[in-house]
């Protein structure tokens, strides 16, 4: 199971990297959200995907899955959610002000 997840995460990293290297700003933002998906799945996978009950003591199971990575993922999800929404609004403002979505045209050392 971990091997399968490793391949899935690898593909997500690959697609994310490809999108981040493209010219359109929107594709770049989509790339960063794929990258964060990949990272969260990686956190889940790296704590071993052994079978066990959900981490609720009411389940009264013999063994549970590791609760720590789930808390880490939840923290990381809300952080990346906040950052992504900021990034989207910033891209919207930049499109309004600068009139382009093309990163090539956002170059330059000119100081206006």
């Amino acid at each position: 199971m971990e091997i399968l997840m490793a391949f899935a995460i690898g593909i997500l990293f690959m697609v994310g990297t490809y999108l981040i290297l493209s010219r359109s700003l929107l594709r770049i933002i989509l790339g960063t959200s794929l990258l964060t998906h990949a990272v969260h799945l990686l956190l889940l996978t790296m704590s071993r995907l052994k079978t066990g009950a959900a981490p609720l003591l009411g389940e009264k199971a013999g063994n549970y899955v590791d609760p720590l990575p789930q808390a880490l993922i939840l923290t990381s999800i809300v952080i990346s959610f906040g950052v992504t929404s900021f990034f989207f609004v910033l891209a919207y403002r930049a499109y309004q002000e600068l009139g382009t979505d093309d990163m090539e045209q956002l170059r330059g050392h000119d100081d206006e």
Partner: protein
Amino acid sequence: MNNLLIMPLLVPLVTAVVLIFFNRQIRLQKWISGLSALANVGVAGYLVHVVRQEGIQTLNMGGWAAPYGIVFVADMFAALLVLTTTIVSAACLYYAFGSIGKEREKFYFYPFFQFLIVGVIGSFLTGDIFNLFVCFEVMLISSYALIVLGGTKKQLRESLKYILINIISSALFVASVAYLYAVVGTLNMAHLSVRVAEAGQGGVLTTISVLFLIVFGLKAGLFLYFWLPGSYKVPPAAITAVFGGLLTKVGLYAIIRTFTLIFYHDPYITHTLIGWLAAATMLLGVIGAIAYWDIHRILIYNIVAAVGFIAFGLAAANQAALEGAIYYLVHDMIVKALLFLLGGTIIAYTGTATIKEMGGLMRTRPVLGWMFFIAAMALVGVPPLSGFIGKLLIVEGGLQAGFYWITGIGLLTSLLILYSMMRIFMNVFWGVPKRPLSEPKKGTGWLLLPASCLVILTIVLGLGAEWIYPYVNQAGETLLNPDQYIQAVLKE
């Protein structure tokens, strides 16, 4: 167990939350944030005193014992950096009072500023690697807001790049934490150190350590500094001073902490790599510093060069070099903030950032001129001032460790930094004015007050080295003997 430990974090946090309610009353915002900044300097000073008297302080959050709960740790290294952070941020805040302008002040500038300080101080004090990630994010998200606040075209353009690079490095940070958790199964730094020592730092852990080096190198501008010159150029001077003084230094702190506490078992690979990255950073930084005629860009590339120099101190990893790195880190936070404040004042007076178009400022602004001269000399490391002792110790440690080439590069870098600073000084302050100087606006004399406090501090740090050295020595001892840190946290 000591609740004092959380105070340097709580003071700016509570202040920030309170300030959100008063975004229209600018005068009240200034009073609250100004007083809380001064109070925080006092708290941090007391923390340094307590650590000096009683050794490493720890605080288990919620009363959970060390590996299971989040622990905050103040050894002397962290305490000194917290004190420096509070001083530098207070100076930048008082500079911002006179320079930032109503439009930004109304839109939550002061809360963002306080949240930035929360993130920086939290990163210095935490003893948990995932909590370090969260503190990094607190710092970075505030810095996104500060860099784009005002919304001019250049700010929008550069902050897009700044945010993108930081999202990627944060994702890599989480990935590194995931790998580390899979190998050793803990997140507490002291416990990590024990587990890594037990398992032996084999190929997998060395790979993870290099991944951490890449992540923190992206934050600190260690070789991976390509994002830095553009994004530090766009915000106003008070914000650039905070960024230049604090943000990259947090990355450096994280590198020093991880490679002295956790991954110190295979120095032949990791520390040699850090050494050569540091050499490349010094060279590339100083090439940038002598290539430009723009005062901001020269100062920004000097940040990069100093990051390389401090990382070299870590790479040499003996007592002299680590003490030198600590001393130089504290000195560099103060001097970089000071130089950006003075640079901002120069730009405010002359109305241009290009040093070719300035000149003759010494006649009308002698105080500013001499302050800039002292700051430049301190940056280069001329003996009575603060940069000298750190540099001397790092060079001594580098020679002891046998890094002759990199030490040579470090000394050459100092020479070229001297050239770059003197080029600013001679072009801006000597000669005749090339364009009419703008009449000083009312109250701009105020701007020099926070900068002059920092000038006095660099002189004190240089002349009072005998008095400050015991503190640095204690900080260096903890870095050299991770057992002290582990004992304090895990209390076996």
